[in-house]
């Protein structure tokens, strides 16, 4: 056991002792002082544990400090200590980290700091993102974050979260939801002179989602997108989708693969596109006569 760790444990014990003493004294003035001392001890212990990389203990220390802060009525400090705790827990215990962040979020929403709350929702979602089974929960938290961001008028952050929602929704085969979000985000980015360049990509993604549901719908959607954003018609993405539609109509799976390969040779397709395209291809293979 390292030096730092031992010191940390001593400090924790000291803090607990101080807390217990308060009961005997009972006086209001002395009591609050002792709580503050205890909080400081916990925080120092937490930092020492951090140095010795004992994340679980560090998280525990910060959590204690946060609890005391909450009792003492300084909510902002409590929230920031919860965040510290979750940062420590994050290293090895996902559930604990999330629980701490949720407590922090509760405090922030209570105080009306929705931007902070949204940011923490986002970090929870990012934690779940890394976990293959946590996608659905990640989506939930991203949605919550987007809602809060929207309420605070930070539209670009909200859109960023929404795009994540759409991306994972598509991966979870909730295409309708993904399409709706992509169309909405594309429409809002068309209004900004800076963001209109990205609209193309959102339309492309929406069209791909359409394509994995139904070809006819995809073609209608493409026409609609071209009307909404005329420059989309000249883009490589538009042409690519058009060729894909044709190949699908002719049941030409090889042509489909070639078109994808051709597109990929110029601009790399990331795993998301690959997954969706593979699904479309598989669908075309599975029910060749259904159209």
């Amino acid at each position, binding site marked *: 056991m390292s030096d730092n760790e031992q010191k940390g444990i001593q400090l924790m014990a000291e803090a607990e002792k101080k807390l217990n003493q308060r009961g005997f004294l009972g006086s209001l003035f002395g009591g609050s002082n002792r709580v503050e001392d205890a909080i400081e001890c916990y925080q120092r212990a937490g930092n020492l544990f951090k140095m010795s990389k004992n994340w679980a203990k560090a998280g525990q220390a910060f959590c204690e400090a946060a609890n005391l802060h909450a009792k003492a009525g300084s909510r902002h400090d409590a929230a920031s200590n919860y965040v510290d705790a979750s940062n420590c827990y994050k290293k090895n215990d996902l559930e604990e980290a999330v629980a701490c962040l949720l407590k922090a979020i509760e405090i922030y929403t209570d105080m009306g700091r929705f931007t902070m709350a949204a940011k923490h929702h986002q970090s929870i979602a990012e934690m779940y993102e890394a976990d293959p089974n946590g996608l659905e929960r990640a989506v939930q938290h991203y949605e919550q974050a987007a809602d809060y961001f929207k309420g605070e*008028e*930070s539209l670009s952050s909200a859109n960023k979260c929404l795009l994540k929602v759409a991306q994972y929704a598509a991966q979870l085969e909730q295409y309708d939801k993904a399409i709706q979000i992509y169309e909405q985000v594309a429409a809002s980015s068309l209004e900004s*002179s*800076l963001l209109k360049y990205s609209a193309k990509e959102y339309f492309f993604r929406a069209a791909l989602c359409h394509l994995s549901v139904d070809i006819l719908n995809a073609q209608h959607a493409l026409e609609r997108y*071209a009307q909404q954003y005329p420059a989309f018609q*000249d883009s490589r993405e538009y042409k690519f989708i058009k060729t894909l539609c044709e190949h699908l109509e002719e049941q030409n799976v090889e042509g489909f693969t*070639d078109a994808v390969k*051709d597109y990929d*040779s*110029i601009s790399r397709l990331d795993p998301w596109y690959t997954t969706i395209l593979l699904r479309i291809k598989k669908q075309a293979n599975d029910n060749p006569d259904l159209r």
Partner: protein
Amino acid sequence: MSGHNYVTNPNSLFEDDDVDDETFLKNSRVNPTSANSTNPFEQQKQAFEEKRREIENRTLESSKRSLGLLIETEEVGKATAGELQKQREQLEKTSRQLDEIGATLRFSQKHLNGLKSVFGGLKNYLAGNREMAPRPPPSTSASGTQMGSPIPQDNGLGAAMPISAEDRYNSHPINRLRSDEVVKVQSPQKAFDSQLEENLGEMCESLSRLKNLGLDLKSEIESQNDLLDNMNDKIEDVDIRMSKQNKEMNKLLGK
């Protein structure tokens, strides 16, 4: 439906290219036997053809690569634009909060003055504080509209740019060349040409988009600079007032 026609072309071009390559390869295998090595010119011609094909392939490859790079650059530019937009939102928010701080400071100054003149007015101060709590931030709306004004200008600029760029693009010789080229695609030479032309055309489009993006980024950064200057003034004002009040409070407490 011009876009539709346009799409089918590259594919058919590709097929054309492949078929022609095959026949070409066959020819190259057959020709030396039929014409034999008796004809040195024929051999030389063959060698040149080979070289030409090599160069053509390389050119195509390099044009493809450049196109890929251009698209990557555009991705980066788009991401930058997104971040800039976010920064603007944050700057505007900060500026609004600064206004609020300024308003709060004005009230606290008032209270301090009250404290100074009549020390017994402590009660008044407390009551006043409670009354004043839900004060409307007066300068917020004014600064909001002030800040909003650069955006429409940007839009105007952004809208004007693509049109002029498109006009220029349409009148560009490459475009005319390309439309000529698409019509007649027979020999492998033509297939190569049109393929290259297409890539070059896309590069041109991509470049013009990038240029517009760059211009938009520039104007956005300029307007954000103005915003920052504006904020700097406000912060200095608040700083001065705050240090003054701090001094006054110290005086009051020190006595």
